[in-house]
C-alpha cells in the first residue's frame, strides 16, 4: 500500500533499477503523492463482446492513502438455443469503490474498502434471465425483475517483518449480492400453473491470509489462502502460490499456481508463467502463458444451470512505456475456452456453454505525480 506507492517514481539509471522512495525527515512536512490510472479492456468472440472502462485515483498524504475507483462494463451477447428465439442482449454494469489505508508505523498497517455494483457480473448471468423469460414468461406470476446489485466491505491488517520486505496480511470481507433469481413454471394439480422462484440474495463472508516472503535476494514469493462462506453453499477454499525470480537485472520470471475447492463437486486448478524483459529505460516487454481447468460450476439460485467442466489456455503479450511519472501499457491475449459436453439437465444452455476462441486487449495509462 503506502510503502510501495512511490515505486512509479523509480527508474533505470543505466546500471540498476532504482526505487526512488525516500524516507522523509521527521521535521519535514507531510508529502503528498497521487496516482491516477485509467484503462480500457475488450474481449470478444463470434457471439460475445465485453468492454470495460475504468478509472482510479489514489492520494497518499503522509502515512495515509485514500482511493476511489469507478468502472463500467458493457455486454453484447447473441442469445440462441433449442426452442428459443434468437435475440441480442445488451446491458451495462457499474462498479464503485472507496478505500482507505494507513501505516501506523514501520510494522503495522490497516485498510478498509467499500465497494458496490449494479448490473450483471458476467455475460453468463445476463444470459439466464432471457432464457427464463422466453421459457416461462407466459406463466402467471412471472415478473420482470431489475438488474442485480451488491455491496461489500473489506478490512485488512498487515504486519511487516523487521527486514522491511516480508509481510503477512489478514483480511476479512462481507458482501451481499441481490441476484436475479430463476423463475421456472410448474404445474401443481391442486393449484394449477405457478412460478417457482429461487433465492434472490447471497451473503458472502470471506477470510484471507497472505504472506509475502523472499527466499533469496533474487526470489520473492507470495502465499495466500482464502476461505469464502456463501449462502446455502459449502465453504470455498482457494490456495495460491506466486513467485518472482530476478534472473538478470532486466529479466524477471513470474510464476503462479493455485487450486480452488468447494464441496461436494467443484475443484479448479490454474497456473501460469510470465516473463518480463526491460528492453530499455522506457520500454518493457511481457509475455505470458496460463492454463485453467475446473470440474464445473456450483450455483445457488438455480438447479439446472450449472456449467459443465471447463478448460482454458491463454497466451498474452504486453508492451510497457514509461517516462517520468507516465506509464502506458498495451496488452493483447488469445484465450481458448472449451466446455465438457452438456448433459440432459443443462442441454438448454448448449449455446451458452459452447467452445469459444476469444481475443482480449487492454490499454492502460497511469500517471504518478
Amino acid at each position, binding site marked *: 500500500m503506502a510503502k510501495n506507492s512511490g515505486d*512509479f517514481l523509480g527508474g533505470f539509471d543505466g546500471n540498476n533499477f532504482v526505487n526512488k522512495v525516500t524516507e522523509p525527515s521527521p521535521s519535514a512536512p507531510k508529502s503528498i503523492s497521487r496516482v491516477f490510472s485509467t*484503462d480500457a*479492456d475488450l474481449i470478444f468472440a463470434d457471439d460475445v463482446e465485453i468492454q470495460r472502462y475504468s478509472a482510479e485515483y489514489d492520494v497518499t498524504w503522509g502515512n495515509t492513502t485514500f482511493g476511489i475507483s469507478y468502472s463500467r462494463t458493457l455486454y453484447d451477447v447473441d442469445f440462441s438455443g433449442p426452442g428459443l428465439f434468437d435475440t441480442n442482449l445488451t446491458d451495462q454494469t457499474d462498479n464503485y469503490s472507496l478505500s482507505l489505508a494507513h501505516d501506523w508505523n514501520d510494522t503495522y498497517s490497516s485498510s478498509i474498502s467499500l465497494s458496490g455494483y449494479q448490473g*450483471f457480473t458476467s455475460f453468463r448471468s445476463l444470459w439466464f434471465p432471457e432464457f427464463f423469460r422466453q421459457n416461462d414468461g407466459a406463466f402467471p406470476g412471472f415478473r420482470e425483475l431489475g438488474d442485480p446489485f451488491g455491496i461489500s466491505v473489506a478490512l485488512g491488517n498487515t504486519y511487516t517483518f523487521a527486514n522491511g520486505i*516480508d509481510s503477512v496480511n489478514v483480511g476479512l470481507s462481507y458482501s451481499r449480492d441481490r441476484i436475479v433469481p430463476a423463475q421456472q413454471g410448474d404445474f401443481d394439480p391442486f393449484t394449477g400453473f405457478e412460478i417457482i422462484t429461487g433465492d434472490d440474495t447471497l451473503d458472502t463472508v470471506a477470510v484471507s491470509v497472505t504472506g509475502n516472503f523472499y527466499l533469496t535476494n*533474487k526470489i520473492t514469493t507470495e502465499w495466500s489462502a482464502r476461505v469464502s462462506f456463501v449462502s446455502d453453499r459449502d465453504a470455498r477454499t482457494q490456495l495460491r502460490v506466486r513467485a*518472482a525470480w*530476478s534472473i538478470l537485472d532486466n529479466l524477471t520470471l513470474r510464476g503462479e499456481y493455485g487450486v480452488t475447492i468447494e464441496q461436494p463437486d*467443484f475443484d479448479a486448478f490454474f497456473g501460469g508463467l510470465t516473463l518480463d524483459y526491460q528492453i530499455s529505460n522506457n520500454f518493457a516487454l511481457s509475455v505470458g502463458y496460463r492454463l485453467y481447468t475446473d470440474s464445473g460450476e456450483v450455483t445457488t439460485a438455480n438447479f439446472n444451470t450449472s456449467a459443465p467442466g471447463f478448460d482454458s489456455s491463454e497466451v498474452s503479450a504486453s508492451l510497457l512505456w514509461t517516462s517520468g511519472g507516465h506509464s502506458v501499457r498495451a496488452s493483447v491475449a488469445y*484465450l481458448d475456452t472449451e466446455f465438457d459436453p452438456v448433459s440432459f439437465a443443462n442441454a438448454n444452455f448448449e449455446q451458452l456453454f459452447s467452445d469459444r476462441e476469444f481475443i482480449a486487449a487492454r490499454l492502460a495509462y497511469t500517471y504518478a505525480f
Partner: protein
Amino acid sequence: MKRVLVIFVAGVGMVLTACGTRELGVVDKIQLGRAAMRFDHKGAELAECTLVSQFERGRSSSVGGGGAG
C-alpha cells in the same frame, strides 16, 4: 483437500523457517522492491487482460453472483 492444505501450510512453514528475520542490505531491498518483483500490480503495472477472469470462475476471488446462475 486435507492433503492440499497440509502441503500448503508445510510450504509456508518451510519458507518462514528459511527466511526468518534475516537482514537485507540496501541494494537487496531495492532489488526486491522493484515493480517486477511485486504481486500487487494495478493500472499500467498490470500486464493481464483483466476481463479473462470472467471465464475463470475458480481463479477469481469473487464468488458472489450477479444474476441467475
